[in-house]
């Protein structure tokens, strides 16, 4: 791209068009504004000075060499240091991610340790009670099974709810809509299973107990504050046929049929002779105390009750569906 300066190359003069010498305070700025990419007049005079430089002597050679070494060194370490700085700027995110990963690993390790200790405690309890008080041991086993503090295995059903596929366009429904399973759907299904006589229930590996809560936060369904992702597999231990029949004959069954027909939520049943539900991961010990020590709200239900929206579930020894 030709620029005007090329057609009329000005002879190097000691005066700018404004009558200033190259050393006038304003000349550099004028040169920059009138010809921003070429301070030729200034450089030209410099060039003549350079040509007039005295020939190299031993002293200048030595000085030049030392200065060159120092400058090369300086530039190299500057660049290296600046590059390190620039890389470090990305690091807060990486650091946080690392921290999250570490915390997760730590939590998993602690959980494993807790499960191990729980196992130890149970074994010791059994040892002690088995040799002294067989009745108490049996009672303890029943209570533990009810409270969800031990893993249970046995026949049962798996009721699976999943988000719907992308739906075709229809009146009132935009194309590609996905109907998601809500916390309420899960609550109703779980309550239906309890009502049908389930002995233990878990959702995606989260054991439900008397104090479990199924809630929602954003798009995620939380069970005991742990976010789960679809499909939701509700494992219930008990007589498979009775459980399925009990749910399907109840209001919960009607509700499930309704959401599968209207919202295309896939609802599937699987019966199995060998299912396991894990122990509840964290069990805080809560106990009832006389009224004069604490207020009555600290009292806990003694049997697995319906999984309700609130953690402080109302005592409900005969679970009923919450519509």
């Amino acid at each position, binding site marked *: 791209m030709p620029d005007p300066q090329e057609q009329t190359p000005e002879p190097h003069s000691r005066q700018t068009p404004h009558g200033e010498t190259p050393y006038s305070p304003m000349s550099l700025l004028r040169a920059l504004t009138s010809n921003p*990419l070429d301070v030729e007049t200034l*450089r030209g005079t410099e060039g003549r000075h350079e040509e007039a430089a005295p020939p190299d002597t031993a002293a200048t050679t030595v000085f030049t060499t030392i*200065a060159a070494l120092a400058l*090369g060194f300086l*530039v190299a370490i500057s660049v290296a240091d600046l590059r390190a700085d620039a890389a470090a700027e990305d690091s807060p995110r990486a650091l946080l991610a690392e921290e999250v990963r570490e915390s997760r690993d730590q939590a998993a390790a602690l959980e494993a340790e807790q499960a191990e200790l729980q196992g130890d405690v149970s074994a010791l309890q059994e040892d002690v009670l088995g040799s002294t008080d067989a009745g108490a041991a049996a009672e303890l086993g029943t209570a533990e099974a009810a409270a969800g503090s031990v893993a249970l295995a046995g026949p049962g059903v798996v009721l699976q709810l999943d988000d719907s596929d992308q739906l075709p366009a229809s009146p009132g429904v935009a194309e590609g809509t996905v109907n998601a399973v809500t916390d309420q759907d899960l609550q109703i299904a779980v309550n239906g299973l309890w009502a049908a006589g389930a002995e233990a229930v878990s959702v995606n590996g989260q054991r439900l107990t008397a104090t479990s809560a199924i809630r929602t936060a954003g798009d995620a369904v939380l069970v005991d504050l742990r976010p789960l992702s679809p499909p939701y597999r509700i494992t219930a231990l008990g007589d498979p046929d009775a459980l399925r029949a009990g749910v399907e004959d109840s209001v919960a069954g009607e509700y499930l049929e309704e959401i599968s027909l209207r919202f295309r939520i896939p609802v599937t049943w699987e019966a199995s002779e060998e299912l396991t539900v894990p122990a509840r991961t964290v069990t805080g010990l809560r106990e009832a105390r006389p009224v004069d020590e604490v207020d009555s709200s600290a009292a806990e239900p003694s049997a697995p009750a319906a999984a309700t929206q609130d953690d402080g579930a109302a005592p409900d020894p005969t679970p009923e569906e919450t519509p």
Partner: protein
Amino acid sequence: MIAILGLAAGILVGIVLQPDVPVALQPYLPIAVVAALDTLAGGLRATLDGAFNAHVFITSFLFNVLIAAFLVFLGDQLGVGAQLSTAVIVVLGIRIFSNAAAIRRRLVRS
């Protein structure tokens, strides 16, 4: 020639040793690098003009880096370090552009 060799040797030493830069010098590093770039462009232009002089090249290199660093230091003392850094970068950037333009013109013309 000796200047180029010296520079290359200095860069090699710096890369190999990788010393830690004192924190006090950190604000001057970007300026030093840009000043170095400016001097390199000037040196290349002088070479193409046939007016390259190693001694002049190195002394102007040294002076540019020192003056740029001094300006930033002065700015830091006056509380306008960031602005003065910007000013130095702008001026050096313009010089780099003008030198690059001169180099381009010479190369394309001849």
